[in-house]
């Protein structure tokens, strides 16, 4: 579909405050949380863009809480689009097909909005936003997520921002809209944590790659991290005792809480528990080893027959 740009497009990119004179449709507090996989997919799409294409867009899928105040963006897929100075075309057919395919895998995820790379909003954003507003089930609003792949902001970071839109003007026109920023959060599940950790372990590597850890290596890493933290805390406490750093009540309270979490168990009781579990574990591992040896013998014998 091609959406022709109207000449009288009123384009407001970033309203700092809610302007008076019109009603914001959703006045309730509204939060968006994004799954890391979405951010990674957007970047991958951006990497694979066509030559001479400045930015990419795509559809966001996710779930809403019942009252619609919380939106969780869980998935996304790219949509091809074509953008010139005076025209923008979004491949609606493609968008519909992809959505149908996604629905087969996970029917719970619905269209919640769209993403684009780049930091600035222009008049095309308003038009695409209008299209997606019709795609999401009314009365909900389409969410627009931007990712700053140009790294042109002050912090030189991949800024992630989310917006909802509000109509503006005396008569509603699709190309007139007001983007209102909404707070957004990165949210993941426990199972995804380990994957994210693994990816993060490669971030300081020059060749940007890493291999998987064994359980033992992982434990060692974690214990080292704990040691480091303990040392930092000891250092801090010593400094406070010296008087070189003024004591901070909040930190003190946190430390108190942490120390009180260590359970007080009777020594004899603990000894008993400790030994019991230890024996269990050794037994299990011994039996497992024995089974494996048996299997190995069987394997050798089998070939001899």
């Amino acid at each position, binding site marked *: 579909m091609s959406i022709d740009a109207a000449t009288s497009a009123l384009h407001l990119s970033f309203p700092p405050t809610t302007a008076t004179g019109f009603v914001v449709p959703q006045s309730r507090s509204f939060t968006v949380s994004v*799954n*890391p*996989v979405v951010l*990674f*997919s957007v*970047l*991958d799409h951006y990497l*694979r863009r066509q030559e001479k294409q400045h930015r990419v867009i795509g559809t966001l899928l996710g779930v809403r809480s019942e009252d619609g105040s919380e939106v969780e963006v*869980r998935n996304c897929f790219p*949509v*091809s689009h074509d953008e010139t100075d005076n025209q923008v075309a979004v491949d609606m057919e493609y968008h519909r*097909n*992809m959505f149908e*395919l996604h629905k087969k*895998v996970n029917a719970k995820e619905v269209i919640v909005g769209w993403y684009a790379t780049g930091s600035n909003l222009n008049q095309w954003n308003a038009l695409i936003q209008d299209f997606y507003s019709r795609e999401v089930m009314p009365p909900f609003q389409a969410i627009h997520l931007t990712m700053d*792949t140009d790294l042109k902001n002050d*912090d030189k*970071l*991949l*800024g*992630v921002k989310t917006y909802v839109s509000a109509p503006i003007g005396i008569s509603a026109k699709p190309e007139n809209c007001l983007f209102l920023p909404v*707070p957004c*959060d*990165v949210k*993941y599940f426990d*199972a*995804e*944590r*380990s*994957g*994210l950790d*693994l*990816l993060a372990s*490669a*971030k300081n590597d020059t060749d*940007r*790659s890493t*291999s*998987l*850890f*064994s*359980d*033992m290596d*992982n434990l060692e890493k*974690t*214990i080292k*991290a704990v040691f480091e933290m303990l040392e930092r805390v000891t250092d801090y406490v010593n400094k406070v005792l010296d008087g070189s750093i003024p004591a901070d009540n909040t930190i003190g309270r946190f430390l108190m809480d942490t120390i009180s979490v260590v359970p007080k168990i009777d*020594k004899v009781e603990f000894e008993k528990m*400790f030994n019991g579990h*230890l024996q269990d*574990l050794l037994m*299990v*591992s011994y039996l*497992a*080893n024995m*089974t*494996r040896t048996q299997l190995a013998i069987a*394997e050798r014998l*089998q*070939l001899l027959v």
Partner: protein
Amino acid sequence: MTSSGTPSTTKETLSNVNVTAALDVEGNVPLKSVQIDGLVVLKIIKHCREFFPNPVTGQLLGLDVNGVLEVTNCFPFPGSKADDENELVDGARYQVDMMRCLREVNVDNNTVGWYQSTYLGSFVTHKLIETQYNYQQTFNNKSVVIVHDVSRSTHGNLSLRAFRFSQAFMEAQKESKFTTESLIKNKLTFSNIFEELPITVKNSHLMTALLHSLDDYEHIIPKTTLDKETVVSPLSPNFDTLELSLDPYIEKNLEFLLEAVEEHTQEQNTYTFWQRNVGREQAKMQSALQKRKQENSSRQASGLEPLPEDDILKMYKLPAEPSRLDSLLITAQINNYCKQLNQYSGPTLGKFFMAGELQK
């Protein structure tokens, strides 16, 4: 492929490395390792987690370059409710449609394998064998299955393993004959059904940038409404590994192990039963043969034509040997469980003593 120019004119100018890459188009270089994109890791985890504990599968897309299988994207398969004919057709159409759609946005359009989720490493099943065999048959041995263990990954360490069939197993499966004889001929045992390939994870530059940005969490996503204290960076240290509760994990693992051992005993019983049957039939045959010989010698003594001995051999038919595939798979599975228990008990011992020190 990295070098896709016409081979006749450009080959001379290519360096040594590129020549092998160009030759690789014909698929001569065997796979040595698997390199996964960070995005794929996250996508697999997401898909597997959402449907946990039901097993799910999906397709892996990418390229193989010089013996390294690069997996750059993937997509999930819809969960199958029943494996009737309709479902299969639907699944195939879904795959074709998805591939076409992904190609339009420049995603690598080359199937390199598939992934599967598993619960506590119980993945050595008939279904996996069949699917992987099909993949490896169709894609010229350049296809892997990546197994993701959700339950282990929640313990703080990601569990992803890449497998493919060994040549020996492929041959045996091709003949679909798993008798003692063919197993010995192919030197096939439970430990060489699969070849495990090492996995490395690679991030693109932009993803590295994103990970660094996530470290600076407060900058990337400006906080307006939430107070600063509740902000936790997604990459803050993770101490899930220090979790001490080991009982559920070991319990479940042992339970599975017991089940597998029981199945194994059953298989053994079937096998001994068959052996006994064979023995009995053979004894019968021998005695009949003996009888015939006696009869023949007495007939010869009285000057009569000896009776043929062939029909006796035809009369007694030896029962066919039961397929050893099941027992092979079960042993592989048992081996897996035992390995897991061992792998798990090591770090847990460490954790125990740490907790012990803490109490002092």
